[in-house]
Protein backbone atom coordinates (compact mmCIF):
# COMPACT_ATOMS: atom_id res chain seq x y z
CA UNK A 1 0.00 0.00 0.00
CA UNK A 2 2.71 2.44 1.03
CA UNK A 3 4.81 1.96 -2.12
CA UNK A 4 1.76 2.63 -4.28
CA UNK A 5 0.86 5.90 -2.62
CA UNK A 6 4.38 7.29 -2.27
CA UNK A 7 4.70 8.68 -5.78
CA UNK A 8 1.31 10.42 -5.65
CA UNK A 9 2.15 12.29 -2.46
CA UNK A 10 5.43 13.26 -4.02
CA UNK A 11 3.84 14.77 -7.10
CA UNK A 12 0.87 16.41 -5.44
CA UNK A 13 1.97 18.84 -2.74
CA UNK A 14 -0.73 20.11 -0.45
CA UNK A 15 -2.69 16.85 -0.67
CA UNK A 16 -3.68 15.27 2.67
CA UNK A 17 -0.78 13.10 3.72
CA UNK A 18 -1.90 10.89 6.56
CA UNK A 19 -2.63 7.35 5.44
CA UNK A 20 -6.16 7.55 6.83
CA UNK A 21 -7.08 10.67 4.87
CA UNK A 22 -5.62 9.20 1.73
CA UNK A 23 -7.63 6.03 2.27
CA UNK A 24 -10.81 8.03 2.65
CA UNK A 25 -10.20 9.70 -0.68
CA UNK A 26 -9.61 6.43 -2.41
CA UNK A 27 -12.86 5.47 -4.15
CA UNK A 28 -12.07 1.78 -4.19
CA UNK A 29 -11.63 1.71 -0.46
CA UNK A 30 -14.80 3.69 0.09
CA UNK A 31 -16.70 1.31 -2.14
CA UNK A 32 -15.20 -1.66 -0.34
CA UNK A 33 -16.17 -0.35 3.08
CA UNK A 34 -19.69 0.35 1.77
CA UNK A 35 -19.93 -3.16 0.41
CA UNK A 36 -18.50 -4.48 3.65
CA UNK A 37 -21.31 -2.73 5.51
CA UNK A 38 -23.98 -4.18 3.21
CA UNK A 39 -22.66 -7.74 3.36
CA UNK A 40 -22.22 -7.46 7.12
CA UNK A 41 -25.88 -6.47 7.42
CA UNK A 42 -26.88 -9.31 5.09
CA UNK A 43 -25.09 -11.74 7.38
CA UNK A 44 -26.82 -10.36 10.49
CA UNK A 45 -30.24 -10.57 8.82
CA UNK A 46 -29.61 -14.12 7.61
CA UNK A 47 -28.20 -15.32 10.93
CA UNK A 48 -31.53 -16.56 12.38
CA UNK A 49 -32.16 -18.69 9.26
CA UNK A 50 -28.61 -20.08 9.33
CA UNK A 51 -28.91 -20.81 13.05
CA UNK A 52 -32.24 -22.58 12.53
CA UNK A 53 -30.71 -24.84 9.90
CA UNK A 54 -27.55 -25.53 11.93
CA UNK A 55 -29.68 -26.29 15.00
CA UNK A 56 -31.67 -28.85 13.05
CA UNK A 57 -28.43 -30.86 12.66
CA UNK A 58 -27.16 -30.21 16.16
CA UNK A 59 -29.05 -28.27 18.81
CA UNK A 60 -25.89 -27.42 20.75
CA UNK A 61 -25.95 -24.05 22.52
CA UNK A 62 -23.42 -21.34 21.76
CA UNK A 63 -21.74 -21.77 25.15
CA UNK A 64 -21.32 -25.51 24.46
CA UNK A 65 -19.73 -24.73 21.12
CA UNK A 66 -17.35 -22.18 22.63
CA UNK A 67 -16.45 -24.57 25.44
CA UNK A 68 -15.89 -27.69 23.33
CA UNK A 69 -14.64 -26.16 20.12
CA UNK A 70 -15.78 -26.03 16.54
CA UNK A 71 -14.51 -29.55 15.79
CA UNK A 72 -16.75 -30.99 18.47
CA UNK A 73 -19.70 -28.97 17.13
CA UNK A 74 -19.19 -30.20 13.57
CA UNK A 75 -18.86 -33.80 14.73
CA UNK A 76 -22.06 -33.47 16.80
CA UNK A 77 -24.03 -32.74 13.64
CA UNK A 78 -26.15 -35.51 12.21
CA UNK A 79 -29.38 -36.22 10.40
CA UNK A 80 -30.75 -37.84 13.54
CA UNK A 81 -33.42 -35.17 14.09
CA UNK A 82 -34.71 -35.60 10.56
CA UNK A 83 -34.76 -39.39 10.88
CA UNK A 84 -36.58 -39.02 14.21
CA UNK A 85 -39.05 -36.61 12.68
CA UNK A 86 -39.93 -38.98 9.83
CA UNK A 87 -39.94 -42.19 11.86
CA UNK A 88 -41.36 -41.32 15.25
CA UNK A 89 -43.65 -38.34 14.63
CA UNK A 90 -46.64 -37.69 12.38
CA UNK A 91 -44.63 -35.19 10.38
CA UNK A 92 -45.01 -37.00 7.04
CA UNK A 93 -48.80 -37.18 7.45
CA UNK A 94 -48.99 -33.50 8.36
CA UNK A 95 -46.75 -32.57 5.46
CA UNK A 96 -49.00 -34.54 3.09
CA UNK A 97 -52.12 -32.89 4.54
CA UNK A 98 -50.54 -29.46 4.17
CA UNK A 99 -49.60 -30.14 0.56
CA UNK A 100 -53.07 -31.45 -0.31
CA UNK A 101 -54.99 -28.69 1.45
CA UNK A 102 -52.83 -25.83 0.16
CA UNK A 103 -52.64 -27.05 -3.46
CA UNK A 104 -56.31 -28.07 -3.83
CA UNK A 105 -57.64 -24.94 -2.13
CA UNK A 106 -55.41 -22.64 -4.18
CA UNK A 107 -56.35 -24.38 -7.44
CA UNK A 108 -60.07 -24.06 -6.65
CA UNK A 109 -59.57 -20.49 -5.52
CA UNK A 110 -57.85 -19.66 -8.83
CA UNK A 111 -60.66 -21.24 -10.88
CA UNK A 112 -63.32 -19.27 -9.01
CA UNK A 113 -61.18 -16.11 -9.04
CA UNK A 114 -60.63 -16.37 -12.79
CA UNK A 115 -64.36 -15.92 -13.40
CA UNK A 116 -64.81 -13.47 -10.54
CA UNK A 117 -61.80 -11.42 -11.55
CA UNK A 118 -62.90 -11.46 -15.19
CA UNK A 119 -66.34 -10.28 -14.17
CA UNK A 120 -65.07 -7.38 -12.06
CA UNK A 121 -62.19 -6.55 -14.36
CA UNK A 122 -63.65 -6.74 -17.85
CA UNK A 123 -67.43 -6.74 -17.80
CA UNK A 124 -69.39 -3.50 -17.44
CA UNK A 125 -72.45 -3.67 -15.24
CA UNK A 126 -74.02 -1.99 -12.23
CA UNK A 127 -72.65 -3.05 -8.86
CA UNK A 128 -69.32 -4.13 -10.27
CA UNK A 129 -67.10 -1.66 -8.47
CA UNK A 130 -69.21 -1.90 -5.34
CA UNK A 131 -68.51 -5.63 -5.28
CA UNK A 132 -64.79 -5.00 -5.79
CA UNK A 133 -64.75 -2.67 -2.79
CA UNK A 134 -66.78 -5.18 -0.82
CA UNK A 135 -64.10 -7.81 -1.49
CA UNK A 136 -61.51 -5.44 -0.02
CA UNK A 137 -63.69 -4.84 3.02
CA UNK A 138 -63.90 -8.60 3.73
CA UNK A 139 -60.12 -8.41 4.14
CA UNK A 140 -60.73 -6.28 7.20
CA UNK A 141 -62.83 -8.89 8.98
CA UNK A 142 -60.46 -10.27 11.61
CA UNK A 143 -59.97 -14.05 11.31
CA UNK A 144 -60.32 -14.32 15.07
CA UNK A 145 -63.94 -13.11 14.72
CA UNK A 146 -64.77 -15.31 11.74
CA UNK A 147 -63.39 -18.47 13.30
CA UNK A 148 -65.84 -18.55 16.24
CA UNK A 149 -69.07 -18.87 14.22
CA UNK A 150 -67.25 -20.79 11.47
CA UNK A 151 -66.32 -23.46 13.98
CA UNK A 152 -70.00 -23.81 14.95
CA UNK A 153 -71.23 -23.70 11.33
CA UNK A 154 -68.71 -26.33 10.22
CA UNK A 155 -69.60 -28.52 13.19
CA UNK A 156 -73.26 -28.38 12.15
CA UNK A 157 -72.45 -29.04 8.47
CA UNK A 158 -70.16 -31.98 9.29
CA UNK A 159 -67.17 -30.07 7.94
CA UNK A 160 -65.43 -29.87 11.32
CA UNK A 161 -62.37 -32.10 11.61
CA UNK A 162 -62.18 -32.79 7.88
CA UNK A 163 -59.67 -31.79 5.24
CA UNK A 164 -62.58 -30.95 2.91
CA UNK A 165 -63.80 -28.44 5.46
CA UNK A 166 -60.36 -26.88 5.74
CA UNK A 167 -60.13 -26.67 1.94
CA UNK A 168 -63.51 -24.90 1.78
CA UNK A 169 -62.34 -22.44 4.44
CA UNK A 170 -59.05 -21.80 2.61
CA UNK A 171 -60.75 -21.26 -0.76
CA UNK A 172 -62.79 -18.45 0.76
CA UNK A 173 -59.80 -17.27 2.80
CA UNK A 174 -57.62 -16.81 -0.31
CA UNK A 175 -60.42 -15.76 -2.68
CA UNK A 176 -60.52 -11.98 -2.08
CA UNK A 177 -56.79 -11.85 -2.67
CA UNK A 178 -56.69 -14.07 -5.80
CA UNK A 179 -59.75 -12.37 -7.31
CA UNK A 180 -58.36 -8.91 -6.72
CA UNK A 181 -54.99 -9.81 -8.15
CA UNK A 182 -56.34 -11.49 -11.31
CA UNK A 183 -58.76 -8.61 -11.82
CA UNK A 184 -55.78 -6.27 -12.02
CA UNK A 185 -54.11 -8.37 -14.70
CA UNK A 186 -57.28 -8.94 -16.75
CA UNK A 187 -58.04 -5.23 -16.73
CA UNK A 188 -54.77 -4.50 -18.50
CA UNK A 189 -55.34 -6.93 -21.38
CA UNK A 190 -56.22 -5.26 -24.71
CA UNK A 191 -59.89 -4.44 -25.14
CA UNK A 192 -62.37 -6.54 -27.10
CA UNK A 193 -60.20 -9.66 -27.07
CA UNK A 194 -63.03 -11.95 -26.17
CA UNK A 195 -65.51 -10.19 -28.47
CA UNK A 196 -63.30 -11.27 -31.37
CA UNK A 197 -63.39 -14.84 -30.11
CA UNK A 198 -67.15 -14.70 -29.62
CA UNK A 199 -67.67 -13.46 -33.18
CA UNK A 200 -65.91 -16.64 -34.22
CA UNK A 201 -68.63 -18.62 -32.47
CA UNK A 202 -67.15 -19.07 -29.01
CA UNK A 203 -69.35 -18.67 -25.92
CA UNK A 204 -68.50 -16.21 -23.14
CA UNK A 205 -67.12 -19.00 -20.95
CA UNK A 206 -65.19 -20.40 -23.91
CA UNK A 207 -63.71 -16.98 -24.59
CA UNK A 208 -62.46 -16.68 -21.01
CA UNK A 209 -60.96 -20.17 -20.98
CA UNK A 210 -59.49 -20.11 -24.50
CA UNK A 211 -58.44 -16.47 -24.92
CA UNK A 212 -58.09 -14.67 -21.58
CA UNK A 213 -56.55 -17.49 -19.53
CA UNK A 214 -53.69 -18.43 -21.87
CA UNK A 215 -52.80 -14.76 -22.29
CA UNK A 216 -52.57 -14.31 -18.53
CA UNK A 217 -50.61 -17.48 -17.74
CA UNK A 218 -47.80 -15.59 -15.94
CA UNK A 219 -50.37 -13.67 -13.91
CA UNK A 220 -52.13 -16.88 -12.95
CA UNK A 221 -48.78 -18.39 -11.92
CA UNK A 222 -47.95 -15.37 -9.75
CA UNK A 223 -51.39 -15.42 -8.18
CA UNK A 224 -51.10 -19.15 -7.57
CA UNK A 225 -47.81 -18.73 -5.71
CA UNK A 226 -49.16 -16.00 -3.45
CA UNK A 227 -52.42 -17.83 -2.83
CA UNK A 228 -50.51 -21.01 -2.05
CA UNK A 229 -48.27 -19.13 0.40
CA UNK A 230 -51.33 -17.85 2.26
CA UNK A 231 -52.73 -21.37 2.54
CA UNK A 232 -49.37 -23.00 3.42
CA UNK A 233 -48.80 -20.46 6.23
CA UNK A 234 -52.30 -20.47 7.66
CA UNK A 235 -52.42 -21.40 11.33
CA UNK A 236 -55.59 -20.28 13.14
CA UNK A 237 -58.22 -21.99 10.95
CA UNK A 238 -56.19 -25.20 10.91
CA UNK A 239 -55.77 -25.07 14.69
CA UNK A 240 -59.49 -24.66 15.37
CA UNK A 241 -61.10 -26.64 12.55
CA UNK A 242 -58.97 -29.80 12.84
CA UNK A 243 -58.81 -31.87 15.99
CA UNK A 244 -57.64 -35.27 14.79
CA UNK A 245 -53.86 -35.83 14.84
CA UNK A 246 -54.02 -37.70 11.53
CA UNK A 247 -55.74 -34.74 9.87
CA UNK A 248 -53.58 -31.90 11.19
CA UNK A 249 -51.56 -29.69 8.88
CA UNK A 250 -47.94 -28.73 9.51
CA UNK A 251 -48.17 -25.41 11.42
CA UNK A 252 -50.44 -26.57 14.27
CA UNK A 253 -48.79 -30.00 14.11
CA UNK A 254 -45.25 -28.84 14.76
CA UNK A 255 -46.42 -26.26 17.26
CA UNK A 256 -47.53 -29.08 19.58
CA UNK A 257 -43.92 -30.22 19.95
CA UNK A 258 -43.20 -27.11 22.01
CA UNK A 259 -45.77 -28.11 24.61
CA UNK A 260 -44.34 -31.57 25.25
CA UNK A 261 -42.70 -32.51 28.54
CA UNK A 262 -39.22 -32.94 27.13
CA UNK A 263 -38.80 -30.40 24.38
CA UNK A 264 -36.42 -31.54 21.67
CA UNK A 265 -35.34 -28.31 20.00
CA UNK A 266 -33.27 -30.12 17.39
CA UNK A 267 -36.42 -31.92 16.27
CA UNK A 268 -38.43 -28.68 16.27
CA UNK A 269 -35.78 -26.91 14.21
CA UNK A 270 -35.74 -29.84 11.77
CA UNK A 271 -39.50 -29.36 11.41
CA UNK A 272 -39.18 -25.59 11.00
CA UNK A 273 -36.45 -26.07 8.40
CA UNK A 274 -38.53 -28.56 6.43
CA UNK A 275 -41.52 -26.19 6.37
CA UNK A 276 -39.26 -23.39 5.17
CA UNK A 277 -37.27 -25.22 2.48
CA UNK A 278 -40.11 -25.53 -0.08
CA UNK A 279 -40.60 -21.77 0.14
CA UNK A 280 -36.89 -21.04 -0.24
CA UNK A 281 -36.74 -23.27 -3.33
CA UNK A 282 -39.84 -21.65 -4.77
CA UNK A 283 -38.33 -18.25 -4.13
CA UNK A 284 -34.99 -19.21 -5.69
CA UNK A 285 -36.63 -20.30 -8.94
CA UNK A 286 -39.47 -17.79 -9.16
CA UNK A 287 -38.01 -14.69 -7.58
CA UNK A 288 -39.09 -12.28 -10.28
CA UNK A 289 -42.69 -13.46 -9.89
CA UNK A 290 -42.51 -12.77 -6.16
CA UNK A 291 -41.21 -9.26 -6.59
CA UNK A 292 -43.38 -8.46 -9.60
CA UNK A 293 -46.44 -9.95 -7.92
CA UNK A 294 -45.72 -7.89 -4.84
CA UNK A 295 -45.39 -4.74 -6.88
CA UNK A 296 -48.41 -5.35 -9.09
CA UNK A 297 -50.78 -7.21 -6.87
CA UNK A 298 -50.10 -7.17 -3.18
CA UNK A 299 -49.13 -3.54 -2.96
CA UNK A 300 -51.89 -2.26 -5.19
CA UNK A 301 -54.56 -4.35 -3.54
Amino acid at each position, binding site marked *: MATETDPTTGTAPGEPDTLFQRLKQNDTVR*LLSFEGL*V*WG*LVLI*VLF*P*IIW*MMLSSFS*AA*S*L*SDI*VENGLGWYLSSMSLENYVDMVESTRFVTWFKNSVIVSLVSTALSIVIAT*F*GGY*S*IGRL*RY*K*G*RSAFAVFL*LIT*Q*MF*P*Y*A*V*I*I*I*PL*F*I*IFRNLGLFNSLTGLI*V*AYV*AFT*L*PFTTWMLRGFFENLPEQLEEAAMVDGSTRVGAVVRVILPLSAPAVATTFIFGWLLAW*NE*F*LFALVLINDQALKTL*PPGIQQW*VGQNTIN*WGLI*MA*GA*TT*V*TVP*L*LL*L*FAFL*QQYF*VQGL*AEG*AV*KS
Partner: protein
Amino acid sequence: MVAEKYRRIIDESDIIKEYQYWLSSESVWGWVFLLPTIAAIGLVNVYPVIRAIYLSFTDYDGITEPTWIGLEHYIRIFTGWPEFWQVLQNTLVWVFGTVVVMLVLGMGFAVLLNHDFPGSGIATSLLLLPWVMPYIAVALNWQWMYRYQTGVFNGLLQLAGLERVLWLGSGKFALAAAMVGWIWRNFPFFMISFLSAMKAIPTELYEAALVDGSSRWELFRHITFPYLQPILIVTTLLMSLWTFNNFTMIFVLTGGGPGLSSMVLPVYVYRKAFITGDMGMAAAIGIVMMLIMLSYGLVYLRFYRADIGQK
Protein backbone atom coordinates in the same frame (compact mmCIF):
# COMPACT_ATOMS: atom_id res chain seq x y z
CA MET B 1 -94.39 8.82 -39.09
CA VAL B 2 -96.50 8.38 -35.97
CA ALA B 3 -95.31 4.82 -35.46
CA GLU B 4 -91.73 5.93 -35.60
CA LYS B 5 -92.37 8.63 -33.04
CA TYR B 6 -93.85 6.07 -30.64
CA ARG B 7 -90.99 3.71 -31.20
CA ARG B 8 -88.56 6.40 -30.25
CA ILE B 9 -90.48 7.13 -27.05
CA ILE B 10 -90.49 3.44 -26.14
CA ASP B 11 -86.79 3.11 -26.95
CA GLU B 12 -85.92 5.96 -24.67
CA SER B 13 -88.17 4.99 -21.78
CA ASP B 14 -86.37 3.88 -18.64
CA ILE B 15 -88.27 0.62 -18.25
CA ILE B 16 -87.19 -0.62 -21.65
CA LYS B 17 -83.62 0.48 -21.04
CA GLU B 18 -83.58 -1.30 -17.74
CA TYR B 19 -85.02 -4.40 -19.37
CA GLN B 20 -82.47 -4.28 -22.16
CA TYR B 21 -79.69 -3.71 -19.67
CA TRP B 22 -80.55 -6.75 -17.61
CA LEU B 23 -80.80 -8.92 -20.70
CA SER B 24 -77.50 -7.65 -22.11
CA SER B 25 -74.99 -10.41 -21.88
CA GLU B 26 -72.47 -8.39 -19.87
CA SER B 27 -74.66 -7.82 -16.84
CA VAL B 28 -75.99 -11.38 -16.82
CA TRP B 29 -72.58 -12.95 -17.22
CA GLY B 30 -71.16 -10.44 -14.77
CA TRP B 31 -73.29 -11.81 -11.95
CA VAL B 32 -73.20 -15.43 -13.12
CA PHE B 33 -69.40 -15.33 -12.99
CA LEU B 34 -69.54 -13.88 -9.49
CA LEU B 35 -71.86 -16.60 -8.13
CA PRO B 36 -69.13 -19.00 -6.91
CA THR B 37 -67.29 -16.10 -5.27
CA ILE B 38 -70.47 -14.89 -3.58
CA ALA B 39 -71.22 -18.41 -2.35
CA ALA B 40 -67.75 -19.00 -0.89
CA ILE B 41 -67.35 -15.54 0.67
CA GLY B 42 -70.91 -15.69 1.92
CA LEU B 43 -70.42 -19.00 3.72
CA VAL B 44 -66.96 -18.37 5.17
CA ASN B 45 -66.83 -14.56 5.59
CA VAL B 46 -70.13 -12.75 5.58
CA TYR B 47 -72.43 -15.20 7.34
CA PRO B 48 -69.92 -15.87 10.16
CA VAL B 49 -69.54 -12.13 10.76
CA ILE B 50 -73.33 -11.65 10.96
CA ARG B 51 -73.52 -14.66 13.26
CA ALA B 52 -70.70 -13.23 15.41
CA ILE B 53 -72.58 -9.94 15.76
CA TYR B 54 -75.58 -11.90 17.03
CA LEU B 55 -73.44 -14.01 19.38
CA SER B 56 -71.84 -10.87 20.84
CA PHE B 57 -75.25 -10.04 22.37
CA THR B 58 -75.58 -13.45 23.97
CA ASP B 59 -74.15 -15.64 26.66
CA TYR B 60 -72.84 -18.68 24.82
CA ASP B 61 -70.52 -21.53 25.75
CA GLY B 62 -70.51 -23.21 22.33
CA ILE B 63 -72.59 -26.20 23.45
CA THR B 64 -75.92 -25.10 24.95
CA GLU B 65 -78.25 -22.61 23.24
CA PRO B 66 -77.10 -18.96 23.33
CA THR B 67 -79.13 -16.76 25.71
CA TRP B 68 -79.79 -13.12 24.77
CA ILE B 69 -78.22 -10.67 27.22
CA GLY B 70 -78.25 -7.50 25.13
CA LEU B 71 -75.37 -5.07 25.49
CA GLU B 72 -73.93 -6.63 28.64
CA HIS B 73 -70.61 -7.72 27.07
CA TYR B 74 -70.08 -4.34 25.43
CA ILE B 75 -70.92 -2.49 28.63
CA ARG B 76 -68.37 -4.60 30.45
CA ILE B 77 -65.71 -3.96 27.77
CA PHE B 78 -66.20 -0.19 27.73
CA THR B 79 -66.69 0.49 31.42
CA GLY B 80 -63.19 0.01 32.68
CA TRP B 81 -62.36 -3.62 32.33
CA PRO B 82 -58.60 -3.41 32.99
CA GLU B 83 -57.82 -6.73 31.33
CA PHE B 84 -59.31 -5.70 27.98
CA TRP B 85 -57.62 -2.30 28.04
CA GLN B 86 -54.25 -3.84 28.77
CA VAL B 87 -54.66 -6.19 25.82
CA LEU B 88 -55.76 -3.32 23.58
CA GLN B 89 -52.77 -1.25 24.69
CA ASN B 90 -50.40 -4.17 24.02
CA THR B 91 -51.94 -4.56 20.57
CA LEU B 92 -51.41 -0.90 19.71
CA VAL B 93 -47.79 -1.05 20.91
CA TRP B 94 -47.33 -4.28 18.93
CA VAL B 95 -48.75 -2.80 15.72
CA PHE B 96 -47.35 0.73 15.72
CA GLY B 97 -44.04 -0.17 17.34
CA THR B 98 -43.20 -2.82 14.77
CA VAL B 99 -44.51 -0.89 11.76
CA VAL B 100 -42.48 2.24 12.57
CA VAL B 101 -39.24 0.27 13.03
CA MET B 102 -39.92 -1.77 9.87
CA LEU B 103 -40.47 1.44 7.93
CA VAL B 104 -37.14 2.88 9.03
CA LEU B 105 -35.27 -0.39 8.42
CA GLY B 106 -36.96 -0.94 5.08
CA MET B 107 -36.10 2.57 3.97
CA GLY B 108 -32.49 2.25 5.14
CA PHE B 109 -31.92 -1.05 3.36
CA ALA B 110 -33.62 0.23 0.21
CA VAL B 111 -31.28 3.25 0.15
CA LEU B 112 -28.26 0.94 0.57
CA LEU B 113 -29.41 -1.49 -2.12
CA ASN B 114 -30.25 1.29 -4.53
CA HIS B 115 -26.49 1.76 -5.05
CA ASP B 116 -25.01 -0.12 -7.93
CA PHE B 117 -22.34 -2.48 -6.62
CA PRO B 118 -21.28 -5.96 -7.67
CA GLY B 119 -23.65 -8.48 -6.13
CA SER B 120 -26.36 -5.95 -5.30
CA GLY B 121 -28.94 -8.26 -6.87
CA ILE B 122 -27.81 -11.20 -4.75
CA ALA B 123 -27.77 -9.05 -1.61
CA THR B 124 -31.35 -7.98 -2.33
CA SER B 125 -32.47 -11.58 -2.81
CA LEU B 126 -30.78 -12.70 0.40
CA LEU B 127 -32.31 -9.85 2.38
CA LEU B 128 -35.75 -10.90 1.14
CA LEU B 129 -35.41 -14.38 2.65
CA PRO B 130 -36.89 -13.63 6.11
CA TRP B 131 -40.02 -12.43 4.34
CA VAL B 132 -40.30 -15.80 2.53
CA MET B 133 -40.29 -17.80 5.78
CA PRO B 134 -43.52 -19.27 7.14
CA TYR B 135 -44.72 -17.62 10.37
CA ILE B 136 -44.69 -20.93 12.23
CA ALA B 137 -40.98 -21.44 11.45
CA VAL B 138 -40.18 -17.84 12.40
CA ALA B 139 -42.02 -18.10 15.72
CA LEU B 140 -40.45 -21.46 16.64
CA ASN B 141 -36.98 -20.33 15.60
CA TRP B 142 -37.13 -17.12 17.63
CA GLN B 143 -38.47 -19.02 20.61
CA TRP B 144 -35.43 -21.28 20.35
CA MET B 145 -33.06 -18.31 20.06
CA TYR B 146 -34.66 -16.59 23.08
CA ARG B 147 -34.33 -19.63 25.38
CA TYR B 148 -32.84 -18.73 28.76
CA GLN B 149 -30.27 -21.53 29.09
CA THR B 150 -29.54 -22.64 25.55
CA GLY B 151 -30.66 -19.69 23.41
CA VAL B 152 -28.14 -18.12 21.09
CA PHE B 153 -28.90 -14.54 22.21
CA ASN B 154 -28.04 -15.32 25.82
CA GLY B 155 -25.02 -17.22 24.50
CA LEU B 156 -23.84 -14.04 22.77
CA LEU B 157 -24.50 -11.97 25.90
CA GLN B 158 -22.39 -14.39 27.93
CA LEU B 159 -19.58 -14.24 25.38
CA ALA B 160 -19.65 -10.46 25.78
CA GLY B 161 -19.37 -10.95 29.53
CA LEU B 162 -22.94 -9.89 30.27
CA GLU B 163 -25.73 -11.46 32.30
CA ARG B 164 -28.32 -13.71 30.70
CA VAL B 165 -31.72 -12.11 30.14
CA LEU B 166 -35.08 -13.81 30.70
CA TRP B 167 -36.47 -12.80 27.30
CA LEU B 168 -39.80 -14.57 27.01
CA GLY B 169 -40.34 -15.46 30.65
CA SER B 170 -40.50 -11.89 31.95
CA GLY B 171 -43.32 -9.42 31.59
CA LYS B 172 -40.76 -6.73 30.88
CA PHE B 173 -39.30 -8.19 27.69
CA ALA B 174 -41.79 -10.70 26.24
CA LEU B 175 -43.73 -8.28 24.02
CA ALA B 176 -40.57 -6.45 22.88
CA ALA B 177 -38.91 -9.79 22.09
CA ALA B 178 -41.87 -10.86 19.96
CA MET B 179 -41.80 -7.48 18.22
CA VAL B 180 -38.14 -7.93 17.25
CA GLY B 181 -38.96 -11.29 15.63
CA TRP B 182 -41.92 -9.81 13.79
CA ILE B 183 -39.86 -6.85 12.55
CA TRP B 184 -37.18 -9.24 11.30
CA ARG B 185 -39.75 -11.29 9.38
CA ASN B 186 -41.52 -8.37 7.71
CA PHE B 187 -39.14 -5.44 7.16
CA PRO B 188 -38.13 -6.86 3.72
CA PHE B 189 -41.67 -6.13 2.52
CA PHE B 190 -41.01 -2.41 2.99
CA MET B 191 -37.47 -2.78 1.68
CA ILE B 192 -38.50 -4.32 -1.64
CA SER B 193 -41.50 -2.01 -2.07
CA PHE B 194 -39.35 1.08 -1.53
CA LEU B 195 -36.51 -0.30 -3.64
CA SER B 196 -38.84 -0.97 -6.62
CA ALA B 197 -40.22 2.55 -6.27
CA MET B 198 -36.73 4.08 -6.04
CA LYS B 199 -35.58 2.28 -9.17
CA ALA B 200 -38.49 3.89 -11.02
CA ILE B 201 -37.37 7.45 -10.19
CA PRO B 202 -35.87 9.07 -13.32
CA THR B 203 -32.10 9.58 -12.81
CA GLU B 204 -32.22 12.92 -14.66
CA LEU B 205 -33.91 14.38 -11.58
CA TYR B 206 -30.90 13.51 -9.43
CA GLU B 207 -28.44 14.70 -12.05
CA ALA B 208 -30.18 18.07 -12.33
CA ALA B 209 -30.21 18.44 -8.55
CA LEU B 210 -26.52 17.49 -8.31
CA VAL B 211 -25.69 20.21 -10.83
CA ASP B 212 -27.50 22.64 -8.54
CA GLY B 213 -25.20 21.52 -5.76
CA SER B 214 -27.76 19.72 -3.59
CA SER B 215 -26.49 17.52 -0.76
CA ARG B 216 -27.31 13.84 -0.48
CA TRP B 217 -29.80 14.53 2.27
CA GLU B 218 -31.52 17.18 0.12
CA LEU B 219 -31.73 14.69 -2.74
CA PHE B 220 -33.42 12.19 -0.46
CA ARG B 221 -35.67 14.79 1.13
CA HIS B 222 -36.86 16.51 -2.05
CA ILE B 223 -36.76 13.80 -4.72
CA THR B 224 -36.71 10.27 -3.28
CA PHE B 225 -39.13 10.81 -0.42
CA PRO B 226 -41.92 12.54 -2.40
CA TYR B 227 -41.72 9.76 -5.00
CA LEU B 228 -42.03 7.11 -2.30
CA GLN B 229 -44.91 8.75 -0.48
CA PRO B 230 -47.84 6.97 -2.19
CA ILE B 231 -46.28 3.52 -1.78
CA LEU B 232 -45.26 4.41 1.76
CA ILE B 233 -48.84 5.16 2.75
CA VAL B 234 -50.24 2.00 1.14
CA THR B 235 -47.58 -0.36 2.52
CA THR B 236 -47.84 1.14 6.02
CA LEU B 237 -51.58 0.70 6.15
CA LEU B 238 -51.39 -2.83 4.74
CA MET B 239 -48.69 -3.92 7.16
CA SER B 240 -50.59 -2.39 10.08
CA LEU B 241 -53.66 -4.46 9.17
CA TRP B 242 -51.59 -7.65 8.75
CA THR B 243 -49.84 -7.07 12.08
CA PHE B 244 -53.09 -6.26 13.86
CA ASN B 245 -54.67 -9.45 12.48
CA ASN B 246 -51.73 -11.82 12.98
CA PHE B 247 -52.32 -14.68 15.38
CA THR B 248 -49.44 -17.08 14.80
CA MET B 249 -46.43 -15.06 15.92
CA ILE B 250 -47.61 -14.16 19.44
CA PHE B 251 -49.56 -17.39 19.96
CA VAL B 252 -46.58 -19.62 19.22
CA LEU B 253 -43.81 -17.42 20.65
CA THR B 254 -45.27 -16.33 24.00
CA GLY B 255 -48.90 -17.46 24.05
CA GLY B 256 -49.62 -13.91 25.24
CA GLY B 257 -47.76 -14.46 28.50
CA PRO B 258 -46.34 -14.31 31.01
CA GLY B 259 -49.67 -13.23 32.47
CA LEU B 260 -51.13 -10.87 29.91
CA SER B 261 -47.88 -9.02 29.30
CA SER B 262 -47.64 -9.86 25.59
CA MET B 263 -51.32 -10.63 24.94
CA VAL B 264 -52.76 -9.16 21.73
CA LEU B 265 -56.38 -9.09 20.59
CA PRO B 266 -56.45 -12.06 18.13
CA VAL B 267 -54.87 -14.42 20.67
CA TYR B 268 -57.10 -13.04 23.41
CA VAL B 269 -60.25 -13.65 21.36
CA TYR B 270 -59.09 -17.18 20.58
CA ARG B 271 -58.39 -17.94 24.25
CA LYS B 272 -61.72 -16.52 25.41
CA ALA B 273 -63.62 -18.52 22.78
CA PHE B 274 -61.83 -21.86 22.70
CA ILE B 275 -59.98 -22.17 26.02
CA THR B 276 -62.27 -20.32 28.45
CA GLY B 277 -65.36 -21.27 26.40
CA ASP B 278 -66.90 -17.80 26.68
CA MET B 279 -67.88 -17.44 23.02
CA GLY B 280 -70.32 -14.58 23.55
CA MET B 281 -67.70 -12.37 25.17
CA ALA B 282 -65.08 -13.50 22.61
CA ALA B 283 -67.43 -12.48 19.80
CA ALA B 284 -68.02 -9.08 21.40
CA ILE B 285 -64.28 -8.40 21.72
CA GLY B 286 -63.87 -9.62 18.16
CA ILE B 287 -66.52 -7.19 16.92
CA VAL B 288 -64.75 -4.31 18.67
CA MET B 289 -61.57 -5.49 16.96
CA MET B 290 -63.38 -5.56 13.62
CA LEU B 291 -64.62 -2.00 14.09
CA ILE B 292 -61.06 -0.85 14.74
CA MET B 293 -59.84 -2.65 11.62
CA LEU B 294 -62.70 -1.35 9.49
CA SER B 295 -62.17 2.27 10.49
CA TYR B 296 -58.47 1.86 9.81
CA GLY B 297 -59.24 0.12 6.53
CA LEU B 298 -61.59 2.87 5.38
CA VAL B 299 -58.73 5.33 5.72
CA TYR B 300 -56.71 2.93 3.57
CA LEU B 301 -59.43 2.75 0.92
CA ARG B 302 -59.57 6.53 0.76
CA PHE B 303 -55.84 6.71 0.13
CA TYR B 304 -56.06 3.83 -2.31
CA ARG B 305 -58.69 5.64 -4.33
CA ALA B 306 -56.78 8.91 -4.17
CA ASP B 307 -53.77 6.97 -5.45
CA ILE B 308 -55.80 5.53 -8.36
CA GLY B 309 -57.19 8.97 -9.10
CA GLN B 310 -53.70 10.35 -9.65
CA LYS B 311 -52.89 7.88 -12.42
